[in-house]
C-alpha cells in the first residue's frame, strides 16, 4: 500500500466515523429539539480518560437515551454534559442509565453552579 493510499484510507475512515457519530447522535435523540422541555447539566468521570468531546457526547447520548450535548472539559477524566429531556422524569431516567454504565462512567453527578459569597 502506498503512502497516498494509506492516507486516503485514514481520511475515509475518519470521515466515516464522523458520519456514523453524527448519525448515532441523531438516532439516539428520541425527539427533536423543539420537544425538549428540560436541560440538565451533569458531570461525568470517565473510567478511561479522553479528550474527544464529540465521541464523549455521542456515547453519552447512546447510553442515556436522550440527546446529550458536550458542554466543557474539566480534565481528561471529568467532563460536563448537557442532557436534553422532555421532562424531569426523563432526565432522571437518563442519569440512572448513565450511572448504570459503570464500565464507562466512574461517577455521574448533577452539575451545580457556585456563587460569590458576599453578604
Amino acid at each position, binding site marked *: 500500500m502506498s503512502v497516498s493510499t494509506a492516507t486516503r484510507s485514514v481520511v475515509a475512515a475518519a470521515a466515516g466515523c464522523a458520519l456514523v457519530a453524527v448519525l448515532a447522535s441523531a438516532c439516539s435523540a428520541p425527539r427533536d429539539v423543539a420537544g425538549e422541555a428540560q*436541560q440538565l*447539566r451533569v*458531570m461525568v*468521570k470517565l473510567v478511561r480518560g479522553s*479528550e474527544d468531546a464529540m465521541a464523549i457526547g455521542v456515547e453519552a447520548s447512546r447510553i442515556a437515551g436522550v440527546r446529550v*450535548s458536550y*458542554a*466543557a*472539559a*474539566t*480534565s*481528561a*477524566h*471529568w*467532563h*460536563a454534559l*448537557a442532557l436534553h429531556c422532555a421532562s424531569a422524569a426523563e432526565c432522571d431516567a437518563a442519569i440512572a442509565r448513565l450511572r448504570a454504565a459503570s464500565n464507562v462512567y466512574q*461517577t455521574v*453527578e448533577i*452539575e*451545580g*453552579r*457556585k*456563587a*460569590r*459569597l*458576599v*453578604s
Partner: protein
Amino acid sequence: MRKLLICAAAAVATLVVPLSLHAPSAQSATIARVIVKYRADSTLLRKQALSVTGQQTLQASALGNRIGIALDAGRAISDRSHVVIGRGMTSQQLAARLAAQSDIEYAVPDERKRIVEVPNDPFYASGPAVGPTSGGPVVGQWYLKPPAAASTAAHTAPAAINAEQAWDITKGSASIVVAVLDTGLRFDHPDLQGGNVLPGYDMISADGPGDFTSANDGNGRDADASDPGDFVTAADSTALGCSESNSSWHGTQTLGLIGATTNNGVGMASAAHGGVKVMPVRVLGKCGGFDSDIAAGLLWAAGIDVPGVPHNANPARVINMSLGGSGTCTQTYIDAIGQANQAGAVVVISAGNSGGNGVSNPANCPGAIGVTALRHVGDKVGYSDLGPEITISAPGGNCVNTAAGDPCLYPILTLTNKGTTAPVAGAAGAAYTDSFDASLGTSFSAPLVSGTVALMLSVQPTLTPAQVKSKLQATARPFPSTGGTAGIPMCTTSSTSQDECYCPNPGVGITTLCGAGMLDARAAVASAAGVQAAISLTTTTPTANQAVVLTSTSVAAAGRTIASYQWTILNAGTTGATITGANDGSAVTVAPTAAGSFVIQLVVTDDLGTSSTTTLSVAVVSGVVTPPASTPTGGGGGGGGGGGAIDAGWLALLLAAVAALAATAPRERTRRIALSAAWRRDRSRVRSDRA
C-alpha cells in the same frame, strides 16, 4: 576553696568555650542575651525559698553549668521564663546551645525591636473621610493590624490578624503565586500596578452552543481574565435564574486583599504585602459559574493541564476560592482539590454566607482550608456558615450599628470599580469599598488566610498543604467567650441556622465549628519560618549487625542556618540499636544487632534557636549470620556453620565506631573537664545562695 573552684571553672571555661564554638577571639567581649522558657517539668523549676530573682539566678547558673558557660539571670518574664546573659558568643549561638537542653521549651535571642513598619498606604490607617453616603471605615484596614492597634476607644478588635508584624518576617516572595478563582480582574486599578499581577486565564465556557450569557464577554475560554462585569439584567435573570444586580467586581475585591501593591502611598495594603504574585482565574460570570469551569480553573491554577487550554507556566501554591453553593462535597471537587493538593497547592475556600447553616460546597471538601467569618470582637458573624469541616476563622466584616444610613464600622476595605454594569476604564474607574459600599462576607475572610499562607510559603516553600493547615491551626489565637452582643449563645452543632454566636475552642470532646481559632498571621509566618527537621535513610537495606547511616535532610528557612543536631534512639525495639559515635552531627550511625524496627529522633535547631523534631521508624532485616565455628548456635533452626572470619558488616561498624571515637574524643574529654569544674561551681553557688 570556693574561690579556687570558681577560678578553676572560669579558667577552663575560658580555654574551652572558644574552642568548642570555633569563635574568633574578637567575640570574647560579645554579650549574648537569650530569652529562655523552661519546660513545666524541668527540675530547674524546683521551688526554693527565694525571691523570683533569686530563683532565676539559680536557674541561670545551673543552666550555664550544664553547657559549660557562665550565665547570669537577666530580666524576669514569667515564673518559667527569663533572660539569661552570657559572654563570648552571639545571642544566636547561645540560644542554639540552650535550645538543645532537655529542660528548655525554647530559647530565642533577646533582640532589640525597632518600631514596626506600618505601610504608608493611606487607607491602611483610616478610610476616606466619612460623609453622608461614602467614606470610611474610620478604622481603615483594621483586619490587617495587630489586635491592640486595631482597637479603638469604643471597640476592641481581637479578631484582627496581625499581618503587620508578619511583614517584619517577610513581605512575600515573587516565587509564590496565589491564584484567585473569581469573576476576573480589573487589571487597570492603580493599586495593582506593582508588577506582581500575572495574566491568568478566563475559564468560563459557553452556556450552550454560541450562548455566552454567563461569560458576558462574547466568547468561551481564553487568555483574557479581565472582568467585563457580572451585572444581571431582567433577561439574564430569566435565562440564568438569579436576581437582577449591578456588577460586583468581586474578583478585584478578593484579589486586592491578597495582592494590592503595598507601601506605595496609594490606597490600601494587602495581606501578602504585594510581594507575592497574584493570578486571576475567571470562573464566575453572571449568576455565578458552573462546577466544570471552577474545577477546571482549580486544576489549571495548580499547574495541571486542562484539555484545550494552554499549560499554566506559573503554577499557584495558593488557590483562593471565595465562592460556594449548597450541598455536600461532590466527587468533582474531591478529585480536583485532591489533585491540586498533590501538586502542592493550598486550597483556601470561604465557608458560605447562608446565615449560620452548614459549610457550603466546596469548602466542606477534604483537603480544603475552609474559612469562617468573624466579627471584629472575635465571635462568629451572623451571616457566616460554620461546621466541623472548617479549618480556621478570620474577619469577614461587620457593621456593629445597623440603623438606616449609618456607616458600617468594621467592613473589609478593598479594591473595586465604579462601573455598575460595564467597567469604568482606567484610574477614573478605580475605587475602594467603604463603610457604605461595604464588603462583607466569608468571601473576604478567605483572602486573608490565602495572603497569610502565601507569606508562610514565602519563607518556607517546602511546606506541604497539610503542613500549612497544621501550622495555621497550631498558631491560631483562641476564640473569645465575651465581647459579643449581649446575650448571644455559644455556637452549637445544631442543624438550624445560627446567627451571631461564640465559637467553641478546641478541646477534648469538643467539636470545633469555626476551626482551631482566629487567624494569627504573625504567629503562622513565624512558625513557618522555623527549621523543618527531616531524616533520610542512607543505608538502602538496614540489616542486623551492619551499620545503618541516617542523614539529616532538614531545611532551614530562607536566610537561616541549622545550628545544631541532636539524634536519639527513642525505641530500640527488638533491634538493640544504639548510636555509635557522635550524635550531634548532620548524620548518625546506628548499630542494630537484631531484626525488627527502631525509632530514631532528630532535633534540629536553627541559628535563631527555633527547634524542630522529627522521628523515623527504621525496619531492620536479618543479616546473613556466619558465627564462628566455636559459637553455639542454640536450639532449633538451621544456620549453617562458618569460618571464624569477621563479617563485613561488623568490620564496617567497627571502623565507623573507631573513626567516630577518634573524631570526638578530644572534644568529649575537654567537655568533661569543663562540666566537672562547672558542677563544683554550681554546688558552691547553691550553698552560697541558700545561706
